[in-house]
């Protein structure tokens, strides 16, 4: 396997081999899940197989995370520049872009040409939507980079889940405002995921649109122009979904609606767990402190990180957003999720369970230490949370 050699400041030479090098292929293959269901349906005649990816995503993945556990290793900093330059890693992120299109088109073709029961039809739409939600993850990794090619690919892949505004919203809005009450994409303590979704989905779109409108205004361009980067991606979405409608007829209307909503729900779930309750404090001038690793919940679970281009190493990602996925690090004393993302989503979808597990974790973080003034609290839950957890910092061990 390919290795990297570098010398430490003291002159000592180190050699590093990335054991995950080929395992990152899982992030490329994971979006092909609808095809496994389609193939099994075609070969056995049982429609139920179309829902298999649900079991892979929400039963097998959390179990694998639990069984394989966590990996806290970091690549030595001295080899990171070589690791970042290695074209192999970025090739994988390019490769997955057409697969997202293939997944949607293939599943739409199957749904539009087979006589499926209503539940299998909608189930296939949901499964495909979940996979297209992973396309937002691909767009996320690509969109954080400086190269024109990667940014263009980000806008293209975001067309599959019809989330073209994400690139601007996430990089220019969410990263600037993360873990503050101003951020519609950072969840507050006491806010359940369903209320969060109602704030996050429209809030994120409005912020993206306003950001892009300001940029176009500075360039003396109208908002409704071909220079609008949101509209560029949305135009691809329109062509793709209209093409599917023309090819496979009216059943594509419910299929694509369910697909799109499930794709967005993936991002909402990720956003919800990534910053729940965390708060950047203000300095004497009323400015928020710079984003630190402890302003994001992290997970080092091996399996789900391997299928998500290391997205769960979220603490390092927010502190250093341009770092490539193969180089993201773990740190000591990070806010840590109880499971990888897929298991954490299950918890998040059951708000009472989520609050029970996470509120305790949140308040016992070293930088919070029970002090509710250091927590991003939902305004309508403030009184109840103060009544329950006390106004004064509590000592935690």
């Amino acid at each position, binding site marked *: 396997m390919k290795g990297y050699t570098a010398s430490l400041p003291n002159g000592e030479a180190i050699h590093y081999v990335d054991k995950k090098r080929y395992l990152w292929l899982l992030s490329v293959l994971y979006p092909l899940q609808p095809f496994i269901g389609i193939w099994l349906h075609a070969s056995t005649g049982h429609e139920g197989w179309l829902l298999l990816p649900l079991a892979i995503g929400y039963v097998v993945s959390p179990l694998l995370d639990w069984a394989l556990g966590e990996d806290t290793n970091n690549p030595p900093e001295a080899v990171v520049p070589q690791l970042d330059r290695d074209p192999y890693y970025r090739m994988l992120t390019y490769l997955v872009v057409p697969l997202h299109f293939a997944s949607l088109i293939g599943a739409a073709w199957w749904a539009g040409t087979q006589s499926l029961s209503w539940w299998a039809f909608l189930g296939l739409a949901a499964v495909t939507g979940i996979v297209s939600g992973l396309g937002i993850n691909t767009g996320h990794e690509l969109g954080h980079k*400086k190269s024109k090619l990667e940014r263009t690919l980000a806008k293209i892949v975001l067309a599959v889940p019809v989330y073209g505004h994400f690139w601007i919203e996430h*990089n*220019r809005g969410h*990263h*600037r405002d993360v873990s503050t009450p101003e951020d519609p994409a950072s969840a507050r303590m006491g806010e359940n995921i369903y209320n969060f979704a109602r704030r996050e989905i429209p809030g994120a779109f409005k912020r993206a649109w306003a950001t892009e409108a300001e*940029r*176009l*205004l*500075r*360039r003396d361009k109208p908002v409704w122009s071909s220079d609008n980067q949101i509209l560029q991606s949305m135009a691809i979405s329109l062509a793709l979904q209209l093409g599917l409608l023309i090819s496979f007829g009216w059943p594509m209307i419910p299929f694509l609606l369910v697909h799109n909503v499930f794709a967005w729900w993936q991002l909402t779930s990720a956003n919800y767990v990534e910053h729940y309750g965390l708060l950047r404090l203000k300095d004497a001038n009323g*400015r928020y402190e*710079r*984003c630190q690793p402890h302003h994001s919940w992290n997970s080092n679970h091996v399996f789900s990180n391997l299928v998500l281009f290391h997205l769960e190493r979220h603490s390092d990602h927010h*502190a*250093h*957003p*341009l770092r490539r996925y193969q180089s993201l690090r773990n740190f000591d004393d990070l806010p840590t999720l109880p499971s990888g993302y897929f298991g954490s989503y299950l918890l998040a979808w059951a708000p009472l369970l989520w609050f029970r597990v996470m509120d305790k974790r949140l308040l016992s973080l070293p930088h919070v230490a029970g002090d509710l003034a250091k927590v991003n609290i939902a305004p309508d839950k403030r009184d109840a949370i103060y009544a329950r957890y006390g106004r004064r910092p509590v000592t935690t061990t």
Partner: protein
Amino acid sequence: MSTYRCQECGYTYCEEQGDDHEGYRPGTPFSALPEDFTCPDCAVRRKEEFEEI
């Protein structure tokens, strides 16, 4: 004309060139950028955290 740099990600704002994509014309001084300007590439560093190089 000066150049300012984001220490997090290395983005540079050169006053002479401005930033065409962001809509800052060549010759726009760094001080004339909006008060809430944050690094267009990483959004981690704010205007006052940029260093002149």
